[in-house]
């Protein structure tokens, strides 16, 4: 016994170890659901059997399943005190001696894949507006078994649908390649009365010749609901279901009464054709069939439009870029079909989910759905979840065209044709270019979320709705809901009848196209048109002393995009004294004359004039809430421990020094991806000796050369070699180790030793050594608070005006001020004297750099523009023919992440907002210009450099500037260079030419807030797999994923189902 116990204990231990059991303790909870994947609905309750005849008191009253329309009618809104609406024939005839018709209720049949069961839930027929949470009750199909149980229906069921007359639930089973028919009446009865059993019939699918079709279904839809309210249920289901069999390249229309395929859409030839039931499929469940290559239909939707009575079936295939639109006749059988080809640039596009909208009258902003009189005309859309992780949109109302949802709103500002805005045809020459960064024509979800499902909903206005027009959660019109694998469910405007349809001429901030156009993600921020104004005596006046609403308010952010504060200069006193920092580049300032005060405001602020803000934020969809930093010679990648955007700031590679040069290699091939360019800077970071050898591999030590004056910069060297190599590596180890990047390839960059150039070397080239010496002294004085006329600081080092071939060519004379020397002691710290010049880095012997090398990539002589969410944007790609990194010739010109100081001049004929010239070509971006810039400047006593009282004043002056269009904001950087001061700080009377004051690390930053924030449903699913439309346009989200709780107060769950009211998204019923 002891031995057995011993072995058991060991086995238990080993099991625990090998299975790596979770260490979290989760509370027990009764869970009703287990991996739900689909939901269907039924109406069950009292029914007078009229068989379509007028109601009579003597007719039989029963309790049974009935057409869902019966519950639709009973759920209609009605005035308080008035009777609940009932279907014709189901009226109360008790006054005529008849028996009362019991009420009917809605039932949800929740399909659960893992156990192969259907769970039941019930709620009363009532208007959507009467839902308040807690309205839905889970039922137990087996009261004799603990917990709430479902009804077994089949193996690996994948879809459930209500038959035409509402009497059966049809289940498609992928595990057994058949259908199950669940009798609704018996199912509900069994849940009420445990002595009865639910009746489930297995239906073998057969072709027209009676042969069994043993193919594995992937999707199923039932023909539109019909049937007669007042007819008794038959012993078999009624109507057709369409089932997608991907391996058979077939969508079969199956008569649910017999299981016989009566019609089909066959893809086996590569082109869909309507056929009959003479089909054959590989026997996937029975085995033995050979699965051939071909189109694999996996997505279905069928709709009957309430206005036109048109019926359509839409089919998507996971390996085909074409949508198939099948026109159905009154019997729901195919009449004709057509295809819509979706843009497929990769050759691998497919569709995994589809939803067909009703016929929608597009346009209108009255707060009422106005389909019949809409100015834009009728459209009908298919929304398709595509394998490029976007939602594609196609207009199928009589035409076959994919709609481009990514047209750059900058280019359609003036468009007022609702029908044009409703669908820009993909591929049409008249369709404007897409917004920069768009992956294709489809709707993109934020943060690259993966869409899993989509459905389209109609949302009516609510009477006496107190919510203001434009309130994000106030939905009037037609809207798509898209679930994503990360748990979010997004709302898409299809036809928003509570917001303008196009921009308002003369009022640029009133309507934003990304918020108005169809097929755009809906925004969650309210009061978007808020302006910094106040009304005084009936006159609107600006307010200047504000940055707008607090974006961090607990009540949430509101208003439009804006800088949350004044742009900030981050200045190192070692380079520029605080008193002189005002001369450094910043974002353009404007004069704001407000009711409260007059001050300089940023062009990015909410206080900027409307026209300026409109130029600054031309595409609200492209705006994130993030912090932008413009850093002179800044990093090209800024990932953090919790942020993945553009790569780690410190990378690790290997250095090679041989007869082919000096180069850094990255075996993962990340250099083009990082956006590195010729003449960028590679800064070796060695290792930090303060953490010992932690940053070096085993066997290596973090060696700091005794002569090194560069703080915190050791080098990993083999422990047994470090001392021996100290002398040989001295120059390398004591230098700053900054190099110029020359050739760029995906896996390597060649490096050039970098001479130290005076940061304020003239942009037009220096003329002689004397000028360089003067500029060096000027630079030295920048670090002091002394007035320029009084400053005496000098730079003791020597500078020569020479051509530096290791840097990008410079304009004018082509020469730069380079620090010169005769020996290293002549140079400043960290620079090595070689060939008469002070080097920031030298080519080391290979033996010095055998260890892994940590390094940074920095923009060379340019600002790097990095957004905390958008990262460093660039258009560098790999030229596979040469192996070099090149600029993508097809890139959008707004895909920029660096700003040099001397870009081409802006074309005055180009449109400021679009950046396009009259001929349709893009202006240079960035480009240089001169602008009015308002700032606070020192105010001196006349003729002196003594500060007056007040000591500062607002000054508006013409300033050199650079305009930068990005995917999001457009901004103007002023004072990229200065003439220098003459006598007083910031008098700008110097005659130094165009000299930059930037130094490596100088930074301008601002926090952008009020960016586009997508409206998502207020639910927390783990892994939502399906969104579907329920009774009264309710939104049902099926969450298949487990939620593993780490809280004692919250149970772990095995899937959930949510019901939300489309008109009031905060009303949520949760089943779990």
């Amino acid at each position, binding site marked *: 016994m002891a031995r057995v116990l011993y*072995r058991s204990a060991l086995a238990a231990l*080993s099991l625990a170890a*090998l*299975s*790596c059991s*979770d*260490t979290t303790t989760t509370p027990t909870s009764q869970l009703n659901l287990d991996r739900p994947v689909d939901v269907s609905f039924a109406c069950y309750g009292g029914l007078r059997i009229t068989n379509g005849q007028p109601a009579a008191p003597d007719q039989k009253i029963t309790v049974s399943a009935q057409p869902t329309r019966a519950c639709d009618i009973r759920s209609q809104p009605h005035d308080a005190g008035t009777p609940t609406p009932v279907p014709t024939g189901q009226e109360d005839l008790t006054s005529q001696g008849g028996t009362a018709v019991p009420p009917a209720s809605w039932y949800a049949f929740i399909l659960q*894949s893992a156990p192969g069961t259907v769970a039941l839930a019930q709620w009363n027929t009532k208007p959507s507006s009467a839902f308040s949470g807690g309205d839905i009750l889970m039922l137990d199909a087996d009261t004799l078994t603990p917990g709430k149980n479902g009804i077994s229906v089949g193996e*690996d069921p994948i879809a459930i649908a209500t038959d035409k007359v509402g009497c059966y639930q049809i289940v498609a089973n*992928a*595990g057994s390649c058949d259908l199950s028919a669940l009798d609704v009446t018996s199912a509900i009865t069994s849940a009420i009365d445990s002595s009865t059993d639910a009746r489930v019939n297995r239906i073998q699918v057969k072709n027209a010749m009676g042969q069994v079709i043993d193919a*594995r279904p992937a999707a199923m839809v039932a023909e539109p609901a019909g049937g007669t309210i007042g007819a008794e249920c038959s012993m078999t289901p009624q109507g057709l279901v369409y089932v997608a069999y991907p391996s058979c390249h077939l969508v079969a229309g199956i008569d649910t009464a017999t299981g016989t395929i009566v019609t089909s859409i066959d893809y086996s030839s590569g082109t869909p054709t309507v056929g009959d039931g003479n089909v054959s499929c*590989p026997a*996937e469940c029975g*085995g*033995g*069939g*050979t*699965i051939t290559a071909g189109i694999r239909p*996996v997505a279905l939707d069928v709709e009957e439009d309430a206005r036109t009575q048109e019926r359509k079936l839409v089919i998507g295939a*996971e390996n085909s870029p074409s949508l198939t639109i099948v026109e159905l006749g009154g019997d729901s059988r195919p009449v004709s079909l057509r295809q819509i080809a979706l843009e497929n640039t990769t050759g691998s596009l*497919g569709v995994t989910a589809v939803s067909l909208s009703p016929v929608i009258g597009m346009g209108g902003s009255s707060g009422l759905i106005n389909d019949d009189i809409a100015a834009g005309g009728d459209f009908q859309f298919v929304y398709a*979840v595509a*394998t490029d992780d976007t939602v594609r949109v196609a207009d199928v109302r009589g035409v076959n065209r994919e709609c481009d949802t990514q047209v750059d709103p900058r280019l359609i500002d003036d468009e007022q044709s609702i029908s044009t805005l409703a669908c820009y045809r993909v591929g049409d020459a008249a369709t404007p270019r897409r917004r920069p960064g768009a992956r294709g024509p489809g709707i993109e979800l934020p*943060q*690259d*979320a*993966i869409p899993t499902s989509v459905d389209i909903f109609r949302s009516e206005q609510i009477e006496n709705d107190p919510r203001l027009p434009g309130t994000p959660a106030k939905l009037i019109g037609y809207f798509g809901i898209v679930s994503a*694998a*990360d*748990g*979010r469910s997004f709302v898409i405007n299809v036809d928003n009848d509570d917001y303008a349809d196009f921009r308002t001429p003369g009022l640029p901030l009133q309507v934003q196209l990304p918020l108005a156009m169809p097929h755009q993600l809906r925004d969650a921020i309210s009061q978007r048109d808020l302006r910094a104004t106040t009304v005084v005596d009936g006159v609107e006046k600006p307010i200047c002393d504000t940055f707008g609403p607090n974006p961090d308010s607990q009540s949430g952010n509101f208003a439009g995009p804006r800088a949350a504060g004044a742009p900030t200069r981050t200045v190192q006193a070692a380079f520029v004294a605080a008193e002189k920092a005002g001369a450094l580049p910043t974002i353009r300032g404007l004069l704001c004359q407000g009711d409260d005060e007059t001050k300089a405001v940023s062009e990015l602020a909410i206080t900027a004039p409307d026209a300026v803000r409109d130029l600054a934020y031309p595409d609200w969809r492209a705006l994130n809430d993030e912090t932008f930093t413009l850093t002179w010679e800044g990093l090209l990648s800024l990932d953090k421990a*919790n942020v*993945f955007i553009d790569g*780690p700031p410190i990378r690790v*590679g290997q250095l*090679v020094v041989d007869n082919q040069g000096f180069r850094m290699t990255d*075996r*993962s091939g*990340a250099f083009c*991806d990082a956006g590195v360019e010729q003449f960028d800077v590679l800064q070796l970071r060695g290792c930090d000796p303060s953490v010992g050898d932690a940053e070096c*591999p*085993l*066997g290596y030590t973090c060696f700091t050369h005794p002569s090194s004056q560069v703080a915190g910069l050791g080098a990993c060297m083999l422990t047994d070699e470090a001392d021996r190599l100290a002398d040989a590596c001295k120059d390398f180890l004591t230098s700053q180790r900054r190099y110029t990047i020359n050739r760029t390839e*995906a*896996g390597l960059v060649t490096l050039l030793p970098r001479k130290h150039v005076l940061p304020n070397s003239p942009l037009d080239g220096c003329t002689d050594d004397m000028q360089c010496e003067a500029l060096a002294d000027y630079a030295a004085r920048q670090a002091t608070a002394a007035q320029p006329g009084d400053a005496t600081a000098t730079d003791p080092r020597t500078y020569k005006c020479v051509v530096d071939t290791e840097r990008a060519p410079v304009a004018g004379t082509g020469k730069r001020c380079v620090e010169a020397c005769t020996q290293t002691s002549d140079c400043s710290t960290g620079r090595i004297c070689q060939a008469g010049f002070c080097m920031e880095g030298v080519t080391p012997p*290979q*033996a010095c750099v055998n260890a*892994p090398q940590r390094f940074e990539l920095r923009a060379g002589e340019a600002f790097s523009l990095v957004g905390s969410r958008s990262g460093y944007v660039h258009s560098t*790609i*790999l030229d596979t023919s040469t192996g070099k990194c090149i600029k*993508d010739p097809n890139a959008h010109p707004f895909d920029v992440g660096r700003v040099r100081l001397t870009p081409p001049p802006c074309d005055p004929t180009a449109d400021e907002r679009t950046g396009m010239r009259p001929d349709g070509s893009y202006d240079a971006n960035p480009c240089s210009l001169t602008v009015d810039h308002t700032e606070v400047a020192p105010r001196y006593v006349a003729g002196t450099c003594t500060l007056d009282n007040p000591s500062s004043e607002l000054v508006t002056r013409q300033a050199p500037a650079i305009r930068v269009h990005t995917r999001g904001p457009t901004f103007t950087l002023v004072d990229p260079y200065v003439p220098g001061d003459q006598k007083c700080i910031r008098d700008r009377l110097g005659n130094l030419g165009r000299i930059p004051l930037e130094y490596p690390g100088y930074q301008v930053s601002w926090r952008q807030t009020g960016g586009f924030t997508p409206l998502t449903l207020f639910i*927390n*699913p*783990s*892994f939502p797999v399906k969104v579907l439309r329920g009774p009264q346009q309710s939104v049902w989200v099926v969450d298949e*994923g*487990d*939620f*593993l709780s780490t809280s004692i107060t919250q149970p772990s769950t095995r899937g959930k189902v949510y019901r939300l009211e489309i008109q009031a998204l905060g009303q949520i019923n949760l089943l779990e």
Partner: protein
Amino acid sequence: MRLPSLLGAALFVAGCTASEDEVKPPSDQFFFPTGITVAPGEKVAFVTNANSELRYDSGSITVLDLVRAQSVIDGWKAREDVPPDLCKVGDDEEPCCARDLEHAETLVCHEQLFINASVGVRIGNFATDISVQDLGAGRLRVMVPTRGDPSIAWADWDGSSLSCNTSGGAFALCDDAHRLSYVQNDADLASIPEEPFNVFADSAGEFAMVTHLTTGAVTLIDSPKDSDRVQVADVLSGIFAADPSNGIRGATGIVGRLPNAPNDIIYVGSRSEDRIQTFTVGRPVNGASPFMLPGNWFFLDAVGGNNGGSSDTRGMAASVDGSRLFVVNRRPPSLQVWDTSLSPTGFPKNKAIGATDICRQGSTVAISGSGDAERAYVTCFQDGQVYVVDPRGDVDVEDIILVGRGPYAASAAKAANLLLVTNFLEDTIAVVDTAPGSKTHNRVVLRIGTVRK
């Protein structure tokens, strides 16, 4: 010989008097099989036996004859042939194979029919994984992390037998040179971190990397193909953040994007953080030991964003062409598919493209086929199942296969259309027919081993 001395001490304390032969593990049986890998060429598969009960003095690596298995399966599938061979069971002989009474499509056979008892080797206890490095010319090298020591055992395959002991002998215990416990095999240097867990061997790069479950460290093993100078070359710790609920850092899944091509990128997952860290391996030009070069990282934020992210990664696998990365995660239970094909910049896209819900205790994933035939097989320890996932389209579970108790790891014999699954809790290997169109498609057609009661 560290292991025997420890074992001896243990036996002494336990008061047992078993002889060495009595505690020597059987060379022709599975005992708590864990890792499995089909060798290139698909003639053999290597199986690690964890000896998790410590019933024997060591674990082992057994060699499964896949040619024989394929032959038996072919006959069984085509004609329901049952091999006439007799196997010795105790003092008796009985037919080696018989039809499974509960699963008519399954043939159950003794291990003896497929295991060549003389070609395996003995290793430490609690082996967790196995990976094979192709040395060329038919030679292979297997790497096995063993959590008992902890150490990493390695053995060379010359085409006919494994060897990990210079003194030779059949079913020999690996010697110290083949059991890597210390950095650079030097006991004066540091020990490898605790709990070596998963291993990935890179044939072109001539290295292997091992993750450590409870420390989050990753160990690099230099494994030159023309030398037996195999040693721990580098150890990196602190790669992953600690689990906020228990403070543990864990590195788990590991896979190379293109293990047979130079400059492979290695992806490492974690049980404590929803992050995948990539590495490359650098070799200094001076011939010194290689080292790991941490590269980009990305977050598993495509699934489960609403409940803490996918912070419990387990098995990982790559498609044949390196264009897809498959990640098993337990929170929420999901198989995530990542696009690791090269972007226009020449760098992997590392972008999530799909996911599907799977069993709750998914542990490892194996890939079979390519293109339309590519499937991912996820072992579900708790449920005794293997989930078959079709990565096309929106990524769906195509089938769920009952394989036996405690399926731990799987490996695909792609040419033979077979999937081999180790059933840890019942000492068997389930062989699944993965041939498209086969009548027994995705069903266990052969169970090797005697089910432990």
